């Protein structure tokens, strides 16, 4: 299907449906919104996407990055209508139906991005991983710590690290986080990476904040950072 952009009517319609299913309303996905000119506006370039599932955030980000690159579509990060359209198109991936057909969409920002909101812009389930992938497009595998999770449930590691600009944009810190929290064989998140325990992503954020006063962390590699991490991180580095 050709990608479009939800206009204000489309955004209101989508948001209204999200509100409705939270309150037990109709579960029927308003797919007509995707093509109805009352709700969409053209993107200006031809970008084709097909219905599919994604194994994780990385796969979704990689797919969309390739689609946009093929169409030479740039400056998409803050395009609210585009990302909302994609969320609605991939609703079964970002908000899968349970056994009874019910959906739990969570906060609206997961589906309709708030690109100017510092606390929520990264929470969009498609734009969030896309931004991270693009920021590390020279070596996106290095950011697997924030991309290895299921698309519909990013979890605490993403919340702790993606919310901090100085962490998520830093190649060395992303290399370190991936070394710490991603199993190199299964490419899934290690147990204990989330939460408040020793060596967790929350603690990594705290430690890096203190390091940031002393070092220019953008000049450091993941290995260099790993060598100076406190002992509490050893259990993740050894695995």
């Amino acid at each position, binding site marked *: 299907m050709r990608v479009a952009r939800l206009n204000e009517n489309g955004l209101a319609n989508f948001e209204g449906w999200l509100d409705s299913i939270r309150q037990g309303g109709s579960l029927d996905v308003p797919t007509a919104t995707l093509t109805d000119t009352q709700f969409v506006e053209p993107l200006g370039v031809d970008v084709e996407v097909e219905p599919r599932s994604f194994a994780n955030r990385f796969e979704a980000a990689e797919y969309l990055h390739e689609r946009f690159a093929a169409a030479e579509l740039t400056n998409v*990060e803050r395009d609210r209508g585009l990302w909302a359209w994609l969320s609605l198109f991939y609703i079964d991936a970002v908000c899968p139906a349970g056994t009874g057909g019910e959906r739990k969409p969570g906060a609206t920002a997961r589906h309709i991005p708030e*690109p100017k909101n510092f606390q929520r812009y990264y929470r969009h389930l498609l734009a969030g991983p896309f931004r991270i992938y693009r920021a590390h497009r020279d070596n996106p595998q290095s950011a697997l710590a924030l991309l290895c999770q299921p698309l519909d449930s990013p979890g605490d590691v993403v919340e702790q690290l993606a919310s901090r600009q100085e962490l998520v944009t830093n190649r060395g810190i992303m290399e370190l986080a991936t070394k710490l929290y991603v199993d190199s064989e299964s490419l899934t998140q290690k147990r204990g990476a989330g939460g408040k325990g020793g060596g967790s992503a929350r603690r990594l954020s705290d430690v890096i904040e203190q390091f940031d006063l*002393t070092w220019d*962390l953008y*000049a450091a590699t993941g290995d260099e950072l790993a060598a100076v991490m406190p002992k509490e991180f050893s259990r993740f580095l050894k695995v």
Partner: protein
Amino acid sequence: MIRRLNYTGRVKIHRRDVRLSTRTDEGPPSFDADLRLTDYELPADALVFVEAYRQTTWMRFPFGTAAVVRPPADRRLAEFDSPDGILFRVKVTQARDEHILLAAADRIPLASPEELDADHDSLLPVNPAELGDELWQLDMDGAEPELLVNVSAVADWRQLARSTTFMALVYPEIVRQVLQVIVIEEKHRDTDDDTDWKSKWLRFAGMLPGIEPNPPDTSAGDGEARDWIEQVVAAFAKKMDFKVKFAAAWHSKEGA
């Protein structure tokens, strides 16, 4: 109040010494930077970098050394779709080990030419910051206190910071917090050092009507000092006529 431990004595570069402006030539936005680093006694060969950032977008530009600041020829902000909301950092790092941070300035917005002409040497610099759902914070982490205003709360953060309602609600509390740090935590009493922000703040407080020029000695306890601070805050609010101005603003369009 933001406070972190700066064990290595990294120098905070004053914002008045970092002036960044955007260029509106054809193509992607680019920027000019005027960095004044000569007063910071940095090693001549220390490396200077300017970083531009907004959310997940980030670019870094080498700017030569502390002795010879040399902007790169290409200062296009090519990773950004527009200059809106871009903030900058300036970092000075040790030449032999680029990881060691010697001096830094952060959260610097692009300025218009009019703003660049303004006098930035104020007692309380006001700067934009991403503060989540908080409207303001007092940053005592750097070389001097700064008022941080939420850059995304309203369309124009400067207008917010200058509004009567904001000033009336926020500034007395800032005076209280800053003086508590100076007088009670740091027990600073010198009012003569023109290079020390604490002395400048004490002089400002001591010149308010009815206020003893010097803060009380805290060696026998904080009680008198706390009373003095409360008197300063009250005198400041009275001098600024905050109650009357706030009421007028509240009943006009600004406060509605």
